[in-house]
């Protein structure tokens, strides 16, 4: 039998089962906490740091997606300080690579863009890094433009957990961190990739896209398949 815990988020009394995260409970109760790496159907990773919340009694910020609820917990999901942090984090995601919304395949279908808008990020104060970053268009159907990658690692997780191919992984560290296919070989030469396209569907930005899509035509409409596939996988004991 699952235990139900009660807690407070932004002053509201809410409840959730013992294995739920703060993010799960907040969402169930209509409390919107921004995130770019969480996706229903794949495990959480805490990669984007946007869902940081304050927990009374702790002096550090905690990612809501990685924090299991505890009885009597007091969570602050929205405050001026948190908004400031989330804006700064989003700004850093932008300046770290080269995001040119106006000519991006994902324009108007982009979670990074939506997040910036929701957070009221109207301009950048941080200097742009403007790194020289590659595009890998060697795959027959898909391309990755690292200029637009925010390292949320959804592609890595979906490829491993749902497709079971584990084509995607990460390489290097710090500013040089990149997602990679197989052991850093061109995507088109990957022997593990099944060309299923799930990575493209889960990518929150225009980093992964179907070849041939024109600017602003890259909407990702097939995402709801994920939780369903996860359930099937679990039922089969995979």
């Amino acid at each position, binding site marked *: 039998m699952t235990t139900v815990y009660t807690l407070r988020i932004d002053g509201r009394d809410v409840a959730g089962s013992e294995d739920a995260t703060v993010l799960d409970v907040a969402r169930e109760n209509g409390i919107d906490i921004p995130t770019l790496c969480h996706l229903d159907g794949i495990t959480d990773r805490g990669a984007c740091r946007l869902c940081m919340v304050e927990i009374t009694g702790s002096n550090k910020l905690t990612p809501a997606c990685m924090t299991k609820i505890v009885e009597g917990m007091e969570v602050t999901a929205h405050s001026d300080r948190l908004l400031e942090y989330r804006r700064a984090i989003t700004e850093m995601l*932008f300046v770290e690579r*080269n*995001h*040119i*919304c*106006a000519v*991006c395949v994902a*324009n*108007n279908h982009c979670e*990074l*863009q939506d997040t*910036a*808008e929701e957070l009221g*990020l*109207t*301009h*950048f104060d941080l200097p*742009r890094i403007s790194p020289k970053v590659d595009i890998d268009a060697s795959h027959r159907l898909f391309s990755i433009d690292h200029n637009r990658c925010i390292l949320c690692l959804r592609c890595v997780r979906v490829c491993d957990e749902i497709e079971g191919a584990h084509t995607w992984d990460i390489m290097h560290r710090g500013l040089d961190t990149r997602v990679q296919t197989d052991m850093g070989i061109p995507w088109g030469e990957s022997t593990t990739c099944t060309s299923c396209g799930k990575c493209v569907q889960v990518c929150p930005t225009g980093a992964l896209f179907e070849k041939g899509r024109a600017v*602003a035509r890259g909407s990702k409409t097939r995402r709801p398949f994920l939780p369903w596939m996860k359930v099937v996988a679990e039922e089969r004991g995979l």
Partner: protein
Amino acid sequence: MTGADAGREASATADTADATVGDAPADGAAGGAFADAAAGGAPAEGVLVVGYGNALRGDDGLGSHIAARLVEDPRFAGATVVAAHQLTPELAIDVSAASLVILVDASSGDRAGAIVTSRVDPASAGGSASSHHLDPAGLVTLARDLYGAAPAVFVVSVGAASFDLGDRLSPAVERALPDAVEVIAGIVGGHRDA
């Protein structure tokens, strides 16, 4: 145009198909109408607001920033809100269809963030035209001479700090935006009550 706001077309009004914030027409063509006149009885029926200026020239872009705010504001329901690069002859058609016209621009003469309202009298307006854009009096004159229109016309200008290349506003102008919206709302309210 790097960045979420500037790059995004139809930023604040994804539902309004023809909105064009942040992509003001470079040839001075009339910008997309954000919100066309809705059903009768809306609070700002018959009102045309044109926020104009070059969105890539610092504070010159404040017109489109204000336009984006007005679209979200229920007090402007029913108004036609346009973000434009310049005042162009085509806008005379929209002016002629309105009973109240408010033109929002950056000004270089005033203190940064200072909001100045002036009125243009359609009957006596002269105006000037350069290559293919107009000043406010010119636009009003054109609407009068071509379509016999005589709406009430106000110019709301906000003092600019910088016209340097870039898609962001200076802090002084950014701070002045809410006040500018209030000034415009006041003009609309006064017009409706009159």
